[in-house]
């Protein structure tokens, strides 16, 4: 199964990518929301997107709104992975159409458990 990692930090992308690989996922990456939309257009089989909030060009919330505003990728689960930890922001993201929310810092166990909550387990 394929996942899209969206974060402007290369370090975080690498970290998430390693975790997902270990869990059996194939990974594509983007450095901000706009790039992610392009990557997604070429990878319509993404089942999961891990989305940072604060990014240049297009932030994570805008990305979620944009994806959820279309009829495409309706099966894709979206998980925010961000330092934003206010209840109001979590609610905002969920209302925009994110399915899960991870507050940084995280570890492999956190990510694995959240993916299980989404009913996604890689082969």
């Amino acid at each position, binding site marked *: 199964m394929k996942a899209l990692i969206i974060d402007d930090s290369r370090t975080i992308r690498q970290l998430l990518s390693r975790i997902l690989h270990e869990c059996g996922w194939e990974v594509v990456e983007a450095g901000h929301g706009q790039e992610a939309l392009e990557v997604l257009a070429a990878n319509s089989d993404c089942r999961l997107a891990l989305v940072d909030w604060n990014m240049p060009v297009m932030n994570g919330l805008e990305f979620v709104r944009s994806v959820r505003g279309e009829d495409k990728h309706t099966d894709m689960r979206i998980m925010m992975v961000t330092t934003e*930890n*206010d*209840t109001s922001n*979590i*609610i905002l993201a*969920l209302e925009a159409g*994110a399915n*899960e*929310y*991870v*507050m940084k*810092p*995280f*570890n*492999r*166990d*956190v990510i694995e*458990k*959240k993916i*299980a*909550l989404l009913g996604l387990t890689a082969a």
Partner: protein
Amino acid sequence: MTISPGDFDYISKLVVERSAIVLEPGKEYLVESRMRSLLQETHCPSIRELVQKMVREPNGDLKNKVVDAMTTNETSFFRDLHPFEAMKNVVIPDLLKKRESTRQLNLWCGASSRGQEPYSVAMMLLENFPQLTTWKVHYVASDISEKMLARCREGIYSQLEVNRGLPAPLLVKYFDHRATKWQIKDNIRKWVDFKQINLASHWPHLPRMDIVFMRNVLIYFDPPMKKIILGKIRQILKPDGYLFLGAAETTLNLDDAFQRMDIKQSGCYRLREGQAHPSREPASV
């Protein structure tokens, strides 16, 4: 038996990755003591051997065993998920029908650790079966450790703890954000009656239970003590009640009165026909 820095490093990395428990340098003695019985169990002569075996078989069960041995209080919200699914889809709907006339449910969580398990059950119940708020629900949660019980009663969790296994919609609905911590709301907290009970010793009077959670605690006892505890659970469980054990636990070869239910990895057991203890209270309330 001493542990080399490399092996300590390997084990602490494994443990933090799987359980979020941090073993700083200086905790070597803890690893050594916790590994002692595991070495016996796995017929490994040394920690060195144990680590090499994990390196050789990275997907083997040994890693789980090492993590389990290191994490006495380890717990998380909705741990293993399957038991909670089984409760939601099978166990509670069944009990709602069977207890319709009395509208009463008794639940017991026998090793509550820091409270994630009893609170997960409570949130699951409120979310899916709001009618239970008009029932008489007696919900006991216990642990041997007063320190753990204090944490349960307080219901305050770190960001890492709420990140592990708790669905975000439940976090925003049932917790208050206080600076860097999250506290479970009073309506949930007040539902659960926390008590100190040592499973390996005398048990106080408990009502006959509809559901008993005894997850990830039997693993710490030897077989004779496991038998005694399962026998006592048999006495307090209603004939049509349910028992949940941890993913690595079983009643097999310990107590034949229990039968594992065929619900995906739920660790859910029931008493076989005729195996319930003669009731101390009027039968089938």
